[in-house]
């Protein structure tokens, strides 16, 4: 395939292809079958693959996530869909204590080839309990791999990469991206897990981001470019492992850094990236690093408040100008 499709269709296409190719792959989660998926990703898959491989589960996040781990131990290649990251908190014991730990606890005997997909992020006026961005939080945990596809190509590639991985991989699909259109070429060799991608070359500031914030960053970079500030935009793609090499190389080129992260600031992935730059490239910096994160409040419902809480292109522009002044 080499065509323009939506992010949603790209994820669906990847799952469909994987299931056609490999009998061990199956999808399970809430409303993935008859409803077609909470975000309509699995629409039509039940009809093609039947209820034995597209499994509607009860609202039992912990049990069906744990069942994914068990099935992976049993030789399957399960894809567990947790409707949103917010509900994944109910499965946190299984994800952290079991999926992430088993290989190590068993002295290398039991790996867990499990893929967990979940929706993340705010922007749809869903309030405090349906708008979390906890991917950075999950990136804290050794044993997991954390992927944050931003583009249509990555939405497809990351399902494929995750299924080929012998260890648990969590994919965070941002709710605002599903209708985005982009080019998908299924013939290109995907950039591997742990590799960041420079989405825009620039010489003045290295802007590090991931997920839906990538597009706000690119919009801001365009605005800044008109004002003579040349931003290099890095899409992390993977929050664990982090691609230190690509980050440090870019820092050594621009000598200025900003991070855009839809997570809260305190204890965030943005904080981790800053710490690593501090450790590995401190003397490359010409100015203090800056970041634009989600304000540290539970997500409000009202549209204007929600938008004020989230990172936005204008905040990114302002931060970039501030960094350039120093």
């Amino acid at each position, binding site marked *: 395939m080499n065509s323009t499709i939506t992010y949603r269709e790209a994820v669906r296409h990847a799952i469909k292809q994987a299931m056609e190719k490999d009998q061990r792959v199956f999808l399970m989660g809430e409303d993935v079958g008859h409803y077609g998926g909470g975000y309509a990703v699995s629409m039509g898959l039940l009809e093609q693959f039947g209820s034995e491989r597209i499994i509607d589960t009860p609202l039992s996040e912990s049990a069906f996530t744990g069942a994914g781990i068990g099935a992976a131990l*049993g030789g399957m290649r399960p894809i567990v869909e947790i409707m949103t990251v917010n509900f994944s908190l109910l499965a946190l014991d299984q994800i952290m204590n079991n999926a992430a730990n088993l290989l190590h606890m068993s002295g290398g005997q039991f790996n867990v080839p499990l893929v967990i997909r979940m929706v993340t992020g705010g922007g749809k006026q869903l309030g405090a309990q349906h708008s979390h961005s906890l991917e950075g939080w999950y990136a804290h945990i050794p044993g997991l791999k954390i992927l944050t596809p931003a583009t249509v190509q990555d939405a497809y590639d990351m399902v494929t990469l995750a299924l080929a991985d012998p260890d648990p991989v969590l994919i965070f699909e941002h709710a605002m991206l599903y209708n985005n259109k982009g080019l998908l070429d299924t013939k290109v060799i995907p950039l591997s897990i742990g590799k960041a991608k420079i989405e825009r070359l620039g010489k003045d500031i290295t802007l590090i981001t991931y997920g839906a914030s990538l597009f706000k960053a690119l919009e801001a970079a365009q605005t800044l470019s008109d004002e003579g500030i040349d931003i290099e935009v890095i899409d992390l793609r993977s929050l664990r492992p982090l691609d230190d090499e690509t980050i440090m190389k870019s820092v050594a080129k621009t000598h200025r850094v900003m991070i855009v992260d839809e997570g809260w600031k305190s204890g965030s992935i943005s904080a981790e990236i800053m710490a690593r730059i501090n450790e590995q490239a401190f003397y490359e910096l010409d100015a203090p690093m800056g970041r634009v994160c989600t304000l540290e409040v539970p997500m409000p419902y009202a549209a204007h408040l929600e938008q004020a809480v989230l990172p936005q292109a204008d905040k990114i522009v302002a931060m970039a100008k501030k960094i350039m002044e120093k």
Partner: protein
Amino acid sequence: MDLDLANKLYHKMLLIRRFEEKCVEMYSKEKIRGFLHLYIGEEAVAVGVMHALSSEDAIFATYREHGHALARGIHPNRIMAELYGKQEGCSRGRGGSMHLFDAATRFYGGIAIVTGGLPMAIGMALSDKMMKRNKVTVCFFGEGAVAEGEFHESLNLAALWHLPILFVCENNLYAMGTALEFTQSETNISLKAASYRITSKQIDGMNVTEVAESSEEAIAQIRSGNGPVFLECLTYRFRAHSMYDAELYRQKSEVEEWKQKDPLIRLPQDWSDINIAQHEEEISHIIDEAVEFAENGTLESVDDLEKFIYSSEVAR
């Protein structure tokens, strides 16, 4: 049941008893550290259930799993070495008492979060069903697990999906130090399982013969495709919850009462030809060898510490 089998079951129960007594000794000598949860008193459950399994079946157990590991056939040397934190241990010293694992005997832990093993057991059984493998998954847990949401989620899935799984509830009456009657409105746990339409039975967990026979029946039913079975085994731990437990929550007289039902006393009452002295002698050698093996084991190099976080770092 015949004398041969009675001897076999007695041997395994005695092995667990003497192995754990040695663990206590080595704990006080500080050879073993961390948590050490003893199974002493409950041996009939693991031994009876394991008797009914084939080598192809999978086992998920809890943090009180030395007995299950021994009954399943993980070599005592490797278990003792694990408790010593040695590289020769069944989890290379990465797991410890609460995390015994063994791929060869399909022993999946050693899961130390109460109820944490149940969802994984569901998934294992689901994989067997999907791949049409005639295997059974057995999941052990204590009665304390019944209070967790995962217990109910898992039982529902097992029944709903008609999975080849045997749930073994080891009801020893106390969740750490809190008695069942203080935590459950319905203390008959088998009734809870039955409410999920799972074939469910309450049995005497101090009687290894009863456990073995009930397990055989249960496994036969599961293998013939009739869905999950739940066995509630009424049992009792003779020792404290862990080495840190002062046992303030139960009467000594209650412990003494249950000790009268000791499975190691009970079985020879039915089979007087069991040669206890001979078992003791054999087992004493096994235990001595296990200790020697553990003592002589290697401490893994700290340089390898960050291995086994991801598969790419596993030397296969």
